[in-house]
């Protein structure tokens, strides 16, 4: 196993800096919790050699741990990002392949182990300025930035960050530096100048002599050489893989049943467990008589937790039967009076405390109130993890959006050290924000189950527990005020919104408005406020883009032309909006009762405009006929997959807008499964979605989330155009539209 002697991509010792808001970027810039740095005892070098020892075998040479090249030319990329369908692992391979001049068919991607040596330095490099402030970061050299990032258990998949951060600052740089080292090694072996060498398809060629050396032959020597993080990256014109439609590497196993998710883990002697949690969040388990469960065939153990009861049995069916046989008594934690209506009333009161604005001279004034409900991620694979506690050590299996933090939490739950936990990361059947460790109750639960029995145990949440004990997008109310000047343009805008966190970044609009104000009124319910695909951009996109439509109507103007008037000439936003209108045939005649709506939202560094055509069916429910999206994320790495992400985002946004809501009554979630938490079906989704990318070359933005926020307002605006009725409360199905 080779190791590069000097590394200026990474640093030698970890920072112990405290109080870093490491999750800031997940919310698209808004200040979220300060997760702090993980006080790790590792020196960076030992973490890295540990990482290499985990992954690098005989005949293989590692480059910073993140890639290895084998003597048979196979290049393995270790992705710090989990794959849950967003396709970033393939995109990272494309970015690496371009800088490395690698043979595409010999690149494989593997999940990076949940080891500190695989903390995502690149993510830190990209987002540390958001975390600690641009002023501080500006004063630090790159090596210091890496050093700080390295000290964090940063292995997050979220924030639409993989390509724009890990790809841009990680694998492209490592690829270029490794290529340079391979060329140096070849030059030395052939005794020629590097300038006489070319690299292509994992082969270095000296055309003058006709000699060539394979990467597999050069890797061991190259791995002893210095890697330079300042190696020049390729220009757009030189890309062979970036920007090309490439088939995703993970898809073949997902069509033949062999892809392994957490729920699929099978271990010798393993038992399966089911769980029931306190119905009111904050409630505790008072008592439970285990006997009725123990009487069920196959049930072996009933485990009482602080706020839940677990039944361990031979198989899931028996465990679940055991759960259903129990009548545990739970307290309500003092939260029994909380309801969606009481939250709304509290939030509206807070919003109404915001100052009223006056109408501009000779102009008009408008005020509207909007509401969005709690939303559930409804990932298709419910929480499922396996664990085995033996001789003071824990081995665990499952999917998570941040393996390093999950491993740390497993250790804390088990009362053992980080080093005594092994976490095997599996694929995830969706996540959408639900599988971030702080919201993943299953981490503590599976440890409790594993510590109660001598054999491995797999805990599976039922769909009912999944829906009722979610970590939801918060319920939010907003009051928007707008003033039109005499010229018919927006002169003033004031929004008051009530929710858990400050959504300053997502509360803005791309429009030029002389007086703009957004006021956050903090409100914390008894529910866990978590991330839901596109986070705050989803509800604020709905508020703002609906309200702009209302102002256009007040001004007596076409909604598209009205938006145009407020966007700077020559701006990326205007180009995106114009292209969307053009592709959708904006202004062309539609049948009676059908409307067209437009919306534009920037989130995660990407600008997306969408046009939806919709009508109301006889039963009063909306029918979405066509959908168009135009996206400027700077550069698309894999257009084929990027389009899929935009399509998925639109459908999830439409699904929530049409039918999804988690509501509370007497402190209890009223929904329990898909029949009462209706996720959009194929028949209700737009049959075709036209997705178009503008390759502006601007700073790269995310792709997993930005397709979602414009969907709800574009639909609501289309329904207004179709019916004259304005949707201000979601979901649409909760109100009469016919």
């Amino acid at each position, binding site marked *: 196993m080779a190791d590069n002697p000097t590394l200026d991509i990474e640093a030698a010792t970890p920072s112990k800096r405290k109080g870093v808001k490491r999750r800031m970027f997940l919310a698209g810039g808004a200040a979220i919790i300060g997760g702090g740095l993980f006080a790790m005892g590792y020196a960076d070098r030992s973490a890295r050699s540990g990482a290499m020892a985990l992954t690098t075998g005989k005949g293989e040479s590692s480059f910073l741990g993140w890639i290895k090249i084998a003597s048979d030319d196979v290049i393995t990329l270790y992705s710090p990002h989990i794959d*849950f*369908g*967003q*396709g970033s692992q393939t995109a990272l391979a494309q970015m690496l392949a371009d800088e490395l001049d690698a043979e595409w068919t010999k690149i494989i991607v593997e999940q990076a182990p949940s080891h500190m040596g695989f903390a995502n330095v690149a993510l830190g490099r990209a987002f540390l300025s958001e975390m600690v402030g641009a002023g501080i970061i500006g004063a630090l050299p790159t090596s210091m930035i890496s050093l700080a990032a390295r000290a964090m258990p940063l292995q997050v998949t979220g924030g639409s960050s993989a390509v724009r951060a890990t790809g841009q600052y990680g694998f492209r740089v490592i690829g270029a530096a490794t290529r340079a080292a391979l060329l140096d090694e070849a030059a030395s072996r052939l005794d020629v100048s590097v300038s006489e060498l070319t690299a292509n398809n994992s082969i270095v060629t000296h055309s003058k002599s006709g000699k060539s050396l394979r990467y597999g032959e050069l890797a061991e020597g190259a791995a002893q050489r210095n890697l330079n993080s300042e190696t020049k990256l390729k220009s757009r014109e030189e890309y062979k893989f970036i920007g090309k439609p490439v088939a995703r590497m*993970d*898809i*073949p*196993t*997902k*069509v*033949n*049943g*062999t892809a*392994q*998710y957490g*729920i*699929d883990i*099978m271990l010798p002697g393993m038992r*399966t467990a089911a769980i029931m949690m306190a119905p009111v969040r904050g409630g505790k388990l008072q008592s439970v008589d285990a006997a009725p469960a*123990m009487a069920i*065939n*196959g*049930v072996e153990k009933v485990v009482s937790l602080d706020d839940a009861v677990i039944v361990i049995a031979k*198989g*899931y*069916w*028996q465990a*679940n039967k055991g759960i259903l046989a129990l009548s545990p008594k739970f307290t309500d934690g003092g939260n029994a009076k909380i309801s969606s209506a009481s939250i709304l009333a509290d939030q509206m009161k807070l919003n109404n405390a915001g100052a009223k604005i006056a109408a501009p001279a000779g102009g008009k004034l408008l005020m509207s109130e909007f509401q969005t409900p709690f939303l559930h*991620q*409804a*990932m*298709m*694979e*419910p929480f499922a993890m396996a664990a085995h506690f033996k001789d003071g050590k824990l081995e665990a299996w499952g999917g998570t959006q941040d393996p390093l933090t999950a491993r740390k939490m497993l250790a804390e739950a088990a009362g053992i050290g980080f080093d005594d936990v092994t976490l095997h990361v599996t*694929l*995830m*059947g*969706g996540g*959408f924000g639900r599988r971030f460790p702080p919201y993943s109750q299953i981490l503590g639960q599976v440890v409790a189950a594993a510590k109660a029995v001598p054999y491995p145990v797999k805990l*599976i949440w039922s*769909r009912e527990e999944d829906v009722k004990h979610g970590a939801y997008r918060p319920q939010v109310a907003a009051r928007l005020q707008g003033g039109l000047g005499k010229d018919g343009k927006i002169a003033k805008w004031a929004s008051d919104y009530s929710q858990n966190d400050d959504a300053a970044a997502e509360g803005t609009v791309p429009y030029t408005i002389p007086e703009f104000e957004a006021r956050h009124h903090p409100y914390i319910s008894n529910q866990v406020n978590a991330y839901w695909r596109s986070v705050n951009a989803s509800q604020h996109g709905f508020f703002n883009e609906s309200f702009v439509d209302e102002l256009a109507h007040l001004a007596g103007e076409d909604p598209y032309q009205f938006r145009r008037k407020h966007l700077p000439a020559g701006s990326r936003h205007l180009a995106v909006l114009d292209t969307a209108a053009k592709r959708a045939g904006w202004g062309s005649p539609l049948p009676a009762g059908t409307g067209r709506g437009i919306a534009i939202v920037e989130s995660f560094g990407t600008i997306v405009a969408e046009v939806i055509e919709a009508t109301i069916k006889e039963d009063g429910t909306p029918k979405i006929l066509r959908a168009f999206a135009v996206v400027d994320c700077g550069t698309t790495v894999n257009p*084929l*997959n990027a389009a*899929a*992400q935009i*399509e*998925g985002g*639109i*459908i*999830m946004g439409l699904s929530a807008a049409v039918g999804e809501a988690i509501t509370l009554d007497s402190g209890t979630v009223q929904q329990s499964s*898909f029949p009462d938490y209706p*996720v959009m*079906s*194929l*028949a209700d*989704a737009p*049959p*075709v*979605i036209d*997705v178009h990318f503008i390759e502006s070359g601007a700073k790269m933005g995310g792709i997993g989330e930005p397709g979602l926020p414009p969907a709800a307002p574009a639909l609501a605006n289309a329904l207004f155009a179709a019916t004259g009725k304005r949707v201000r409360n979601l979901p649409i199905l909760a109100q009469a539209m016919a």
Partner: protein
Amino acid sequence: MSNQTMAVQISPVQTTVNGKAVTIQAEPDTPLLWALREELGLTGTKFGCGVAACGACSVHVNGEIMRSCSVAVADVEGKSVTTIEGIGGVDGTLHAVQQAWIDAQVPQCGYCQSGQIMAAVALIKNTGRPTHAQIDEAMTNICRCGTYPRIRSAILAATGQAAAKGDA
């Protein structure tokens, strides 16, 4: 273990799964889903809701599409069950629908796709060349990643109705 209560009678169920005769040792009310996954190790069939609402557990029983979470194992006695693991050729060649799924780059997280493919195979068997309305009616499986436009184009492509190489 303290559960020394009388064991429920477990009568072995004789059935055929993916062309092989098997004996399933499970209580008769055990859903086929859990028998497939836990007794036979066929984990390609997924648990999504347990109430036949999402379709992640879709399999074929005597050629008909069924949601295996809501079929008791006793009810497949003597019948033929096909799962996602059994629709391709024995030599590993893909079923035309699986290939269409790859060509159209359908799966994202992939969790629902076994069920989606089983539903599509049954639809195509029943209709030959399904219309949009037949696709709407038959493809009721939930996909949270929103792969529906690609599922539709893959079904059309698999039945010679569209050339949909990654195009939704």
